[in-house]
């Protein structure tokens, strides 16, 4: 898919909270320290953080890199599965905090881990159609894992914000995008439940791998590219192994995914996951680099994008804290403090 | 303006009064003050109180207490200036008599803190600060003192221990005050080892919130001798205010309202700090005691703690403070505190302070609202 006019990423920004729960803490409590761990550690939001506050910071970073005033934004769209309100968009609070109101469109997006890239697809269309000059798409989550469940090792907090604008102002112009969606209930949460359900191994081959491979393959075919044409590739990263495996299946090397693979150190930031990985790539990208972004959201679907980095990247990278500076800003906590921060302690 | 005299005083014990309600306490103190003066009627009642609305669901407190104490259809009103409410009520009573408008004016300060749980009481106490930009940030009243104490320690190179004498002195004096909430001495070690409330403000830096009521009867000069064996003359009454929020002040460590109020009081009385025999200051926190001494001219900025360390604040020192325990040991029933200070000052000037007697004929009382945003100073003479 290509919009009517050329668009690209004008500004980008990341956010990861400072607290980290080592995976060994989860296994210490639940398995007596026995067994392997899917990531090294995961990020944990502080008591005063949520999807709203994290989106505000990532968006401020994106505005700083974009060099545009917030009131030029025509849309503020936040994708998450942990919006603080079920009714009252995260996006309205973010828009107000940024100074984008009142002449702006705002709404929340949900599609599990690809809510952010859905917002990105829409932002591309909104700008590409000429309706607005700039649109902000954010993927951000404060994911909750059921205590004792396998997902508890990885459910993390963080994400990224992207400002889409015209290609000639962008640090990375869009070549094309593609969306592949089916009704596949691999992982879901009913409206009034606190924790999601997941299908165990069903989340692998019929869900993550099928949709990611299908979306990427279709995009590559449409553009006539192969893996060798890309400097870097970023996949949705629910753990360490899945993105490594899907990269291999599609023919991408470990070198190509290394810079954008953050899950070993921050966990799975859900709607923020692949978008956060892309910011890390952009932080180190050079003009001419072609970058693949492929998200995956349970339910299920994958959005794939191909970007080419422009000459403007060098002067914009340093205008906001790098993703690595957020990753490096870490304070390890133990399981008890994590249980307090994530409000898992029920007062009887 | 006429001369005004204090001819009757009354007070309840300050502490936890499970059996006495807000109105019960007020009536107790009021009747005691009337009895002390040997009268049964007054022309008006001003009630100092901060939190009756928030904690007792009771507004209209002036009229309620006039009713409940059997004073009939007299003029009555509640006066509020946060922690300085009692002194503010005294100010209104003083103006009523001095102006010639009224003759016998009863002023009562009353507060009941213990009907509420501690967290709610703390929250209500914080209503004396800027609700939109201070309290809403999670600032507690002790945290305000913590900000001041930390800055004081930083600017003047003073350690926490330097504040210990304020608590030690107050508790030492509380021993001999039957109306004090705390009547046992504390040691410097106990002060140093105490737990933190809002670092660096520890448990012995904070005056205890409690229940209590105190009352005084005021009259004009020409009736003073008729009503009291030892009438006490109100030589000065002065009020000043500062920016409410600590962050709005040019120098947070300079209690400008206290300075201005005391300067006006000195001018009215034609005296200076050297003439003051004792000072019932607003020691809601030890740092406020130090800052009060500095603002009122008893010590240079940063040296209020030196005055304490040198022993000058004790009963035999150059400027005795908290002579009956102060807010720290007698207690801080918020709206009542300003009147407790006057009652204690009057007892001193009458020679009725017992083991805590300070030989002097001129004393000063100062009540501060919030973090010093309101300062109300009275100078009394035997």
């Amino acid at each position, binding site marked *: 898919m290509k919009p009517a006019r050329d668009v690209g990423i004008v500004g980008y920004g990341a956010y990861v909270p*400072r607290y980290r729960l080592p995976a060994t803490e989860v296994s210490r409590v639940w398995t007596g320290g026995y067994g392997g761990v899917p990531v090294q550690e995961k990020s944990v939001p*502080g*008591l*005063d*953080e*949520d999807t*709203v*506050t994290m989106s*505000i*910071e990532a968006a401020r970073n994106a505005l700083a890199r974009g060099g545009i005033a917030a009131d030029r934004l025509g849309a503020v769209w936040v994708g998450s599965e942990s919006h*603080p*309100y079920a009714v009252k968009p995260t996006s309205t*609070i973010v828009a*107000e*905090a*940024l*100074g984008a109101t009142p002449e702006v469109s705002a709404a929340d997006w949900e599609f599990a881990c690809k809510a952010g890239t859905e917002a990105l697809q829409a932002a591309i269309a909104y700008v590409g159609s000429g309706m607005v000059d700039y649109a902000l798409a954010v993927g951000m989550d404060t994911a909750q894992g059921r205590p004792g469940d396998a997902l508890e090792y990885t459910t993390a907090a963080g994400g990224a914000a992207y400002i889409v604008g015209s290609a000639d102002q962008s640090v990375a112009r869009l070549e094309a995008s593609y969306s592949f969606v089916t009704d596949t209930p691999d992982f879901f949460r009913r409206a009034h439940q606190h924790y999601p359900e997941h299908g165990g191994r069903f989340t692998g081959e019929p869900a993550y791998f099928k949709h990611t491979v299908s979306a990427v393959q279709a995009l590559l075919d449409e553009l006539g590219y192969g893996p060798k044409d890309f400097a870097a590739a970023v996949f949705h990263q629910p753990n360490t192994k899945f993105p490594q495996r899907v990269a291999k299946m599609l023919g991408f090397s470990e070198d190509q995914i290394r810079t954008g693979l953050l899950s070993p150190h921050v966990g799975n930031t859900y709607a923020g996951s692949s978008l956060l990985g892309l910011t890390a790539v952009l932080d180190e990208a050079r003009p001419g680099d072609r970058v693949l972004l492929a998200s995956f959201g349970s339910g299920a679907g994958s959005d794939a994008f191909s970007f080419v980095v422009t000459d403007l990247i060098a002067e914009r990278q340093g205008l906001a*804290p790098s993703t*690595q*500076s957020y990753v*490096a*800003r*870490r304070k390890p906590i133990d399981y008890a403090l994590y249980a307090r921060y994530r409000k898992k302690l029920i007062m009887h | 303006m006429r001369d005004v005299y204090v001819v009757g005083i009354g007070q309840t014990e300050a502490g936890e009064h499970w059996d006495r309600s807000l109105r019960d306490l007020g009536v107790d103190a009021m009747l005691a003050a009337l009895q002390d003066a040997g009268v049964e009627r007054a022309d008006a009642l001003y009630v100092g109180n901060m939190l009756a609305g928030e904690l007792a669901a009771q507004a209209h407190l002036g009229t309620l207490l006039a009713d409940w104490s059997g004073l009939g259809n007299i003029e009555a009103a509640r006066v509020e200036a946060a922690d300085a409410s009692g002194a503010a009520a005294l100010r209104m009573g003083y103006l009523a008599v001095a102006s010639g408008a009224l003759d016998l004016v009863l002023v009562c300060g009353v507060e009941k803190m213990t009907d509420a*749980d*501690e*967290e*709610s009481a*703390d*929250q209500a*106490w*914080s209503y004396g600060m*800027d609700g*939109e*930009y201070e*309290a*809403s*940030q*999670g*600032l*507690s009243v*002790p945290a305000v*003192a*913590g*900000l*001041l*104490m*930390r*800055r004081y320690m*930083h600017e003047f190179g003073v350690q926490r221990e330097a504040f210990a004498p304020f608590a030690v002195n107050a508790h030492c004096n509380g021993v001999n005050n039957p109306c004090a909430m705390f009547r046992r001495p504390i040691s410097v070690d106990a002060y140093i080892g105490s*737990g*933190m*409330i*809002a*670092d*660096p403000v520890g448990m012995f830096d904070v005056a205890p919130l409690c229940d209590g009521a105190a009352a005084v009867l005021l009259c004009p000069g020409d009736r003073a001798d008729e009503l009291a064996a030892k009438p006490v003359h109100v030589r000065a009454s002065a009020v000043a205010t500062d*920016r409410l929020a*600590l*962050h*709005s002040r040019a120098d*947070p460590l300079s209690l400008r309202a206290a300075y201005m109020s005391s300067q006006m009081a000195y001018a009215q009385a034609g005296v200076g700090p050297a003439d003051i025999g004792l000072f019932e200051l607003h020691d809601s926190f030890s740092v406020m005691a130090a800052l009060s001494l500095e603002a009122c001219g008893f010590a240079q900025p940063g040296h209020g703690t030196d005055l304490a360390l040198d022993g000058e604040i004790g009963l035999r020192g150059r400027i005795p403070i908290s002579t009956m325990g102060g807010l720290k040991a007698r207690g801080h029933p918020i709206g009542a505190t300003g009147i407790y200070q006057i009652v204690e000052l009057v007892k001193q000037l009458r020679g009725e302070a017992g083991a805590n007697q300070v030989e002097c004929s001129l004393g000063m009382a100062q009540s501060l609202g919030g973090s010093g945003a309101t300062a109300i100073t009275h100078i009394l003479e035997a």
Partner: protein
Amino acid sequence: MNIPRYWRTERARYRLLGETCRRCGKPIFPPRDVCPHCTEPQQDPRTFAGRGEVYSFSTVHQAPAGYTDCKPYTVALVKLEEGPLVTAQLTDVDNEDVHVGMPVEMVTRKIKEEGDNGVIVYGYKFRRPVRESADRH
């Protein structure tokens, strides 16, 4: 619920939106109708950058109602680089590491929640700048 009360101060809380006095030109935060410096009643809106340093701080161990869930937390007086002093919580800090003079930057965080079903109140807090804190590790 105090909805209108919180709504009125949103811009000041989310973005440090303050004022510049039209007569004396001094910066004003929080916004108010009358200039605290020269009593002029006309001001122009301006946003503060959010950079400053810790003027003083205190760690709250006994919290008032509404803030008990977050204790111990540290409140501070922050001197903004433009001049005004602001009362705010510090966040993302280890309480023992705070010192007077510490450089800080503004972030928008949760201040409180009106229970499980009421509004969430967001506003300014201050923390060590991210780039500086990353360098420390």
